[in-house]
């Protein structure tokens, strides 16, 4: 345990701690542009320079190990000048216009320039090669703004195991991107947007669709309905200065209503519906395997997360049959909205516009899939990220903080706590277990406060085994069966589970995968910047939302029950099959 001195503060740190981490422990702030806690410390940006007594030059504190007796100064004239030069050089190459850049409000480079007191650009010269890649429905890359910090490369390769991005060419010509300058659409990108979530500048952002929504709202011939994903309510507040983990459900509804949506609905409704379908699908698979002895593919994989679906199609096409055939809640909502609901209010599906607000960029891609047209037209028309909704509320001139709390509209705004927790890693599994248990045993789900603790939290892969007791009627074959489940978040972790299954090292009945670390609360479309601390705060908020509900189990949702009674019939029935289920496609891996 080395003890060192940072700006006259003595601090004892564990072996292997970097000077940067030690400084943070001592409460000393060192600016960074490429560092990502627990993910990347490579000294690429050179902004975290400090003076170390006895060292010949300034050192990058993120890669410098803290050693016994080390004396570090973080605020000397030499340090300030060094950092300033580094940022001035970055600015000299940066081909961006801060006045109109979508990142100007929270750009780390611009903020740093301001913090370092850079008033004028000292250096002029060649700019970074600029081209704009808007080949995908989800993401837009602008290479001119890239500062080659490599955060996106590390997240894409190490966290997600996708490897769509890498440094191409060398020296001044280095461009971060796919192989040989290919557009993202041509490569294995799963469009999860984790690259956009960690980008310090405006080099990778979501495709902005705000104006499309305004146009729909202003079109008198259109009925425009909106759905908001569970994870939005725990993060949107951050766009308006609330601390992470502030629930703003009521204000969000009020804002959407004031913006002019004809109905403010909830993806939560469709999440409850998903549980009915996916839970039934699981029980049917188990029955066919255990009773009928059919060669049924198990474990069943969850299918709510579109980045995960893309990943499976590219990287594990031999296991597509494991994926639940259920569409994601977003797409179930779109299909039900433009059939059941459109019919109820007497609107033709082509005259209805369904807008989604998602914590996700891959949802933009998902909505654009050609097979997502169960209603005869595109089921979900426009997808906004949480960040875009925040920007749109600001554009509308709405004082978000002053809004009253309002409630979602019926019927597609009615939901349960089980749907709220879809936002968190482990949440889909927990929601499914709450319902499956009660269908099978007809007794209350026996976990304290309905939470299955082993599958909650930020551990990369979580598992649980639940012994079925009191199985009744047609489900009595499950009596005494240990229901084995696994939960993974981050595609790198998901691949670990897949490898275990393939190698026969582990057996599960049901596996939940969410593409982004932490689940949807850490999605690629959430307000920046998402650290583990922020993830935990948002997850707590989601649990609070769930625990504050009267109804916390999907099968208790009265609006979903009515949907089955009035329209669908039974879960996994014929109409469900047409509207709520889908199929998958194999794509090239490289």
């Amino acid at each position, binding site marked *: 345990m080395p003890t060192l001195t940072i700006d006259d503060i003595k601090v004892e740190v564990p072996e292997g701690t970097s000077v940067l981490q030690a400084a943070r422990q001592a409460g000393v702030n060192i600016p960074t542009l490429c560092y990502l806690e627990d993910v990347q410390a490579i000294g690429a940006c050179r902004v975290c320079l400090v003076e170390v007594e006895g060292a010949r030059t300034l050192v990058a504190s993120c890669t410098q190990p803290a050693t016994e007796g080390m004396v570090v100064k973080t605020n000397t004239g030499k340090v300030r000048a060094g950092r300033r030069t580094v940022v001035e050089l970055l600015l000299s190459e940066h081909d961006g216009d801060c006045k109109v850049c979508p990142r100007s409000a929270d750009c780390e480079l611009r903020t740093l320039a301001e913090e370092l007191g850079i008033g004028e650009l000292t250096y002029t010269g060649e700019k970074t090669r600029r081209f704009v890649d808007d080949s995908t429905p989800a993401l837009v890359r602008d290479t001119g703004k890239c500062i080659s910090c490599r955060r996106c490369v590390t997240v894409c390769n190490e966290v997600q195991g996708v*490897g769509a991005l890498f440094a*191409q060419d060398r020296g001044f010509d280095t461009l971060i991107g796919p*192989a*040989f300058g290919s557009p993202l659409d041509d490569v294995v990108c799963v469009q999860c947007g984790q690259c956009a979530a960690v980008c310090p500048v405006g080099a990778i952002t979501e495709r902005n669709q705000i104006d499309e929504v305004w146009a729909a709202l202003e079109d008198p011939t259109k009925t425009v309905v909106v759905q908001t994903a569970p994870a939005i309510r725990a993060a949107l507040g951050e766009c308006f200065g609330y601390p992470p983990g502030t629930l703003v459900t009521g204000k969000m509804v009020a804002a959407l209503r004031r913006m002019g949506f004809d109905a403010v609905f909830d993806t939560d409704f469709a999440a409850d519906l998903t549980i009915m379908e996916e839970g039934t699908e699981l029980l049917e698979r188990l029955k066919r395997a255990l009773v009928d002895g059919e060669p049924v593919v198990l474990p069943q994989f969850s299918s709510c997360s579109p980045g995960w679906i893309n990943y499976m199609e590219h990287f594990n096409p031999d296991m597509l049959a494991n994926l639940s055939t259920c569409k994601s809640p977003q797409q179930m909502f779109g299909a039900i909205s433009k059939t059941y609901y459109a019919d109820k209010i007497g609107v033709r599906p082509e005259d209805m516009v369904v807008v989604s607000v998602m914590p996700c960029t891959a949802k933009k891609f998902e909505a654009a899939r050609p097979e997502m047209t169960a209603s005869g037209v595109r089921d979900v028309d426009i997808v906004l990220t949480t960040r875009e909704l925040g920007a749109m509320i600001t554009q509308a001139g709405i004082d978000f903080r002053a809004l009253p709390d309002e409630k979602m509209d019926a019927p597609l705004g009615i939901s349960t706590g089980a749907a709220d927790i879809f936002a968190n890693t482990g949440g889909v599994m927990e929601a499914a277990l709450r319902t499956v248990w009660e269908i099978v045993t007809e007794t209350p789900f026996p976990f304290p406060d309905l939470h299955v603790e082993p599958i909650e939290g930020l551990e990369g892969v979580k598992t649980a085994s639940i012994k079925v007791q009191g199985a009744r009627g047609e489900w009595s074959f499950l009596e005494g069966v240990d229901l084995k489940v696994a939960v993974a978040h981050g595609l790198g972790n998901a691949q670990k589970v897949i490898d275990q299954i393939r190698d026969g090292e582990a057996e599960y009945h049901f596996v939940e995968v969410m593409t982004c670390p932490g689940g949807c609360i850490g999605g690629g479309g959430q307000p920046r910047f998402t650290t583990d601390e922020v993830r935990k705060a948002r997850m707590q908020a989601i649990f609070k939302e769930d625990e504050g509900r009267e109804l916390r189990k999907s099968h208790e949702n009265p609006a979903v029950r009515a949907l089955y009674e009035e329209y669908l019939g039974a879960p996994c029935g014929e109409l469900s099959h047409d509207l709520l289920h889908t199929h998958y496609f194999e794509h090239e891996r*490289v």
Partner: protein
Amino acid sequence: MNEDVKRCECCAEEPTEEELLERLDAVIEDYRGKPGALIPVLQLAQGIFGYLPEVALKHIARRLGKPYSEVAGVVGFYSFFTTVPRGEHLVRVCLGTACYVRGGVQVLDALKKELDIDIGGTTDDRRFSLAIGRCFGACGLAPVIMVDEDVHHRVKPKRVNEILAQYAGEPALAERSA
């Protein structure tokens, strides 16, 4: 097939892409699972194909379990690697300091004119490709050019045609280094 191009003695026909990929597989098998396998595999692949075509790079990415973006990144980083087909003979002109000051640029210009191609280009008859190098370790003999593995020293711009003439009937680069 171009009748002017002489083939190696043992086989009458140019190897098919499939045959080349089979040879590549044998190379990959030797290196699979070893740390740092990518660069030597790329180097040997370039020997087999004469350059690094997309089909070979994607094959390497799949077989070594590496992202294609990373394979492309490594290819782009090292000037040794090329993704465009090369001629039978690779002419490299040293533009290291010693060669540069002793007229390397004039030699380069003469070669460009003689071959009627630019740096990185290949002649229409696919006989010669032109590249620049940074020091072959023969500074005392500057200016230096290399044709395939042969070093030619104290090259005079006027006499580059004589050097090129020596390679009129040599076997192709790809076949020699494979």
